């Protein structure tokens, strides 16, 4: 009785297929890298924006919020917060106004006690994010 298929053929398909698709993925990545400058708003990555991204990370904002839909689902999407909250002032105002002991019974955002420079950096960062070409995502202002 001969086999319908051999382990050797299965092995060849695994190695061949994996290498093939790895190469294809690298080709698409290469194309993506060359297409990004027109979409990722990199021309607006200033020192301040970079500082804002660092603050975003050091305070783990992603631990409650989503940014471009990625993160935690406890608090609102912030990719379009610049638009939804009414610009930089709206963003800063919201962050500054968080009560340090939270709102009784409600999901609460910590009070981070940011100084003016940090608030400016965070607001600039969120402005930069809101201008990235995300193929029209989110579907509406609510995120």
């Amino acid at each position, binding site marked *: 009785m001969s086999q319908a*298929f051999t*382990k050797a053929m*299965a092995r060849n*398909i*695994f190695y061949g*297929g*994996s290498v*093939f*698709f*790895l190469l*294809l*993925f690298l080709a*698409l990545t290469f194309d*993506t890298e060359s297409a*990004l400058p027109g*979409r*990722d708003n*990199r021309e607006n*990555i200033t020192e301040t*924006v*970079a500082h804002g*991204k*660092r603050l975003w*990370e*050091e*305070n*783990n*904002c*992603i*631990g*409650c919020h989503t940014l*471009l*839909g*990625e*993160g*935690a*689902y*406890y608090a*609102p*999407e912030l990719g379009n917060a610049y638009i939804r909250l009414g610009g930089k002032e709206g963003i800063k105002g919201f962050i500054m106004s968080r009560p*340090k*002991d*939270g*709102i009784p*019974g*409600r*999901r*609460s955002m*910590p009070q981070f006690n940011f100084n003016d420079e940090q608030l400016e950096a965070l607001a600039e960062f969120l402005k*930069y*994010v809101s201008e*990235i070409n*995300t*193929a029209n*995502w*989110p*579907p*509406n*202002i609510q*995120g």
Partner: protein
Amino acid sequence: MQYQSQAVAKPYFVAAIGLFVGQILFGLIIGLQYVVGDFLFPEIPFNVARMVHTNLLIVWLLFGFMGASYYLVPEESERELFSPKLAIITFWVFLVAGALTVLGYLLVPYATLAEMTGNELLPTMGREFLEQPTITKIGIVLVALSFVFNIGMTILSGRKTVVSLVLLIGLVGLAVFFLFSFYNPDNLVKDKFYWWWVVHLWVEGVWELILGSILAFVLIKTTGVDREVIEKWLYVIIAMTLITGIIGTGHHYYWIGAPDYWQWWGSVFSALEPIPFFMMTVFAFNMVNRRRRNHPNKATVLWALGTAVMAFLGAGVWGFLHTLSPVNYYTHGSQITAAHGHMAFYGAYVMIVLTMISYAMPMLRGRKAASSNRSQVLEMWSFWLMTVSMVFITLFLTGAGILQVYLQRYGADPQPFMVVQDKIALFYWMREVSGVVFLIGLIAYIASFFVGGSDPEATLEPVEAQA
């Protein structure tokens, strides 16, 4: 136990289970915070409890993979582990580093932890699942290198089987892709693009190779089906995994600023990602049906079959439901994502680790092949409690997600996030109740290691005559 050095797997398994308990306790905390918003605020804010929950998950699964490897590789390679001592040292380094990191999360504000650990020298903190301080990440790389070295040396100097080679490829891939966690550019789009080279290429890539090889090992041992057949199918399954999953990475590139063509490439290939999981299910049931022995460890066979089914449902089906870009446009970053994530991780990775522990632990504790009937029965109860409650968690989150998407993303009058969260609170309460049942299942699971210890082990039945 055929080789003495397989014993090093035991501390890894014990640590894995311990950290699993921690993960679930913190899961219950954040589940409660969803509906009682200020629970433990501000001492343990949601984001801190969440990072403990997710990081514990990843670390205990890694402990599980390592334990599984230390157990199966000597047996497959037909030689003792290259360095049992290195394995034990690595164990303690990993455990202590992990414990310190979790304590760091809990005891100081995250920004302070960043400062204390010198994050500004090479900033890698603050991204989902990669919250670890840079020094912890470096520690993880060293642990991974030591582990892959130990396992690799054992395999390369012994009998090379398909099972051990596929496992090794998976583990090397795991280590290599983790290196992308050190790449954190200012450009948010590039940050996200390469973040997925860690996360997707792990859980929808090389981790599936690890899953496949462990499942194949357990099936060879428990069914007695010819290794040639099982290894052949393992190749087919992992081939389909990488053929679909590599370009399938594109399903994370729809809305993060990457070019629009990813909506096409990602949709087409990720739609096919359920195929390897479907094959795994057919494969597992087929092998068990064609078995040439009735292995006394019935709990293990239950876990193995359960893994295939739940992985297919959680990763395959639930994944498919929100993978096509026209659907994902509305569901991206919603409770649908959480629903899929829970069942996928549980079905594929939690369950394969528990399968391996189920198989190996009795022998690590001195049994010939299985624990006593009493112990197995309790273990099987824990399987059903955890699995069924996870199905309910997933169903409730799916319900929450559908309603959330409809109210917040779809209708003519989209409502604000927080308003919608209030409206779906009932689903969150039901999810939390299911979570408590899950914990009960986990307690039963742990109890199964402590009952029936002095009972005789379940008997080895004679080989069935083949028709």
